[in-house]
């Protein structure tokens, strides 16, 4: 079978063999599982840990696990984590330096062996988020070698969306519940009278080899049509949407908008939105020295543009007010990201909406900015 091979169908057993095969290959399999009242991403040793029969109920500032009537595993939208936790970890050693008594100094890159990840259940929005981080972190003049190593070895198994959450708006960011190229395998889950099964398409040679190793059958017309139908229906059932305007221009022209004061009154500047966002990549660095003082390490950890220190300069922070910091975040996501990296920084996964303790909803803020800009032009 090759990457252009026709779609296949696997059942629950096939899914079990898939996870077992990946584990047997020595891969670190990461996928969804229920923990602490949420569907989180964690290392899986078997398919039994998948969230069979669990769904979620989402809204701005709200997340609840709910029992489903079927045994669907991928019928839940984005949880609090994303794959960046593995590809671009929250803490990472960059290099270390050692000093001899004579004063010679050597620098050593921390090149830990990258685990061979297999990500199971990557949402189409998250697939796009990974592509965006790829470009940000390895597409420029100075590629991030640690990210590059982890990314090159990672196998991506997408799960197309058939049940978007109330906070989802990927379609209005130019994506969709169908998976764009970039996956090794794409699964579409179907639960109907004909049973619980997955349409599987290979997107790479490695994905095709993996599919070959699973008990599968060639996709029948009904299964294929039903999978396509469910994904198409999901497209029309997005919980939210961004206004259908050129967001880059809208945000770029809204730097003086009154709405920023309004959102700044509600924003706690906690930075949750940046931590859960699958594309946010900002980090800071710190130096850690041992007791001898002759060994020192440079670490990088996630940072947030909501942190007051983020823009620290001689006279103090450049962006001291919450207004300026929320504005920085939103305009970066939707506008200046285009200037810096030739794409939007938002894939519409809705995480920032669900996990904001103040329930601030990016789509609502953009709609308000759009309304305000309209008021101005009419004046």
């Amino acid at each position, binding site marked *: 079978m090759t990457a252009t091979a026709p779609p296949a169908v696997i059942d629950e057993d096939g899914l079990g063999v898939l996870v077992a095969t990946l584990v047997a290959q020595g891969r670190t399999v990461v996928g969804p599982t229920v923990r602490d009242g949420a569907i989180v991403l964690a290392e899986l040793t078997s398919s039994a840990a998948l969230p069979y029969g669990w769904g979620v109920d989402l809204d701005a500032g709200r997340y609840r696990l709910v029992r489903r009537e079927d045994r669907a595993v991928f019928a839940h939208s984005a949880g609090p984590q994303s794959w960046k936790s593995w590809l671009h970890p929250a803490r*990472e050693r*960059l*290099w270390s*330096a050692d*000093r001899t008594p004579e*004063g*010679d*100094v*050597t*620098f050593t*890159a*921390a090149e830990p062996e990258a685990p061979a990840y297999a990500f199971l259940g990557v949402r189409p929005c998250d697939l796009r988020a990974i592509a965006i981080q790829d470009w*940000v*972190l390895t597409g*420029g*003049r*100075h*590629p*991030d*070698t*640690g990210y590059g190593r982890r990314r090159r070895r990672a196998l991506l198994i997408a799960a197309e969306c058939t049940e978007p959450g109330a906070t989802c708006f990927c379609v209005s960011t130019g994506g969709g519940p169908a998976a764009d190229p970039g996956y090794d395998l794409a699964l579409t889950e179907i639960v109907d009278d004909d049973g619980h099964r997955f349409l599987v398409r290979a997107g790479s040679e490695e994905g095709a080899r993996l599919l070959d190793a699973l008990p599968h059958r060639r996709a029948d017309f009904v299964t294929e049509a039903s999978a396509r139908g469910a994904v198409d229906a999901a497209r029309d059932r997005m919980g939210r949407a961004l206004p259908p305007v050129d967001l880059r221009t809208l945000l770029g022209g809204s*730097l*003086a908008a009154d709405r920023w004061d309004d959102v700044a009154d509600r924003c706690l500047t906690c930075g949750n939105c940046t931590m859960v966002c699958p594309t946010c*990549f*900002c*980090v*800071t*660095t*710190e*130096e850690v*020295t041992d007791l001898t*003082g002759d060994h*020192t390490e*440079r670490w*990088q950890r996630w*940072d947030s*543009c909501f942190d007051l220190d*983020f*823009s*620290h*300069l*001689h006279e103090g922070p*450049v*962006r*001291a*007010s919450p*207004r*300026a910091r929320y504005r*920085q975040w939103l*305009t*970066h996501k939707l*506008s*200046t990201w285009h*200037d*810096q990296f030739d794409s939007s920084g938002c894939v519409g996964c809705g995480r920032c909406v669900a996990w904001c303790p103040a329930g601030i909803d990016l789509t609502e803020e953009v709609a308000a900015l759009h309304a305000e800009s309209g008021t101005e032009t009419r004046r």
Partner: protein
Amino acid sequence: MSGLPVPHLVTDRRVETADTVTLRLEPVGAALAEFTPGQFAMVHSFGRGEIPLSVSSVQSTGGLAHTVRAVGAVSAGLCAARVGDVLGVHGPYGTGWELERARGRDVLVVAGGIGLAPLRPLVLEALADPGGYGRISVLVGARTPGDLIARDDLARWRTAYTAVTVDRPDAHWDGDVGVVTRLLDRAPFAPERTWAFVCGPEPMIRATARDLARLGVPPHRVRVSLERNMRCATGHCGHCQLGPLLICRDGPVVGWDRAEPLLSVREL
């Protein structure tokens, strides 16, 4: 991660002012790629961290000089480095002044405080090419006479015009007093055939660039060096953003045509 520091030996240390020194560095092993004036390096102080520093001298041998002012832990650590110490350096990063674009034109250099350091190699490059440029003027402002750096250079440079002004004179000062933009009136440059190179604190850059625009220097020919917090210099930490710009990548040197709309937005 990108940019593993390369060991450099401190071969000379020169005290410029009470809080500023110039360190001359030679690579211990293989040299970094050549820096051009206006670019910067990340310089590591053992156990403290690393900070962006512009090159204040570029050597074809691979040697570098940095003029550093102690304002915090890392810069103070670097200022305290002694001859024979080893520091880690990586780079070059960022855009340069691109003096060659000013060929045949008047060159106007305007510096505020330690902003003279990154402009120093540009002046040397221009002076090393007599006939390559029109008139070369250097205008320098400092808070007090004690804050002036590169005094010997200023005395030695045979530019068309060199002037220094201070905000607060002391008993011995008999030169100009006031902001650096006051010196623009006397400097011999023809605005329509001038390239200006400006570095200093942001309010000083803004005032200078606006006056130059008023005098008729086209905004893209006013080159300014911008500053933001920088943790990586490689476009990955996000700290140096100024609107659409990642200053470590798209700057620090940009034209005033790009900088002006950004620097006029409060808290951008």
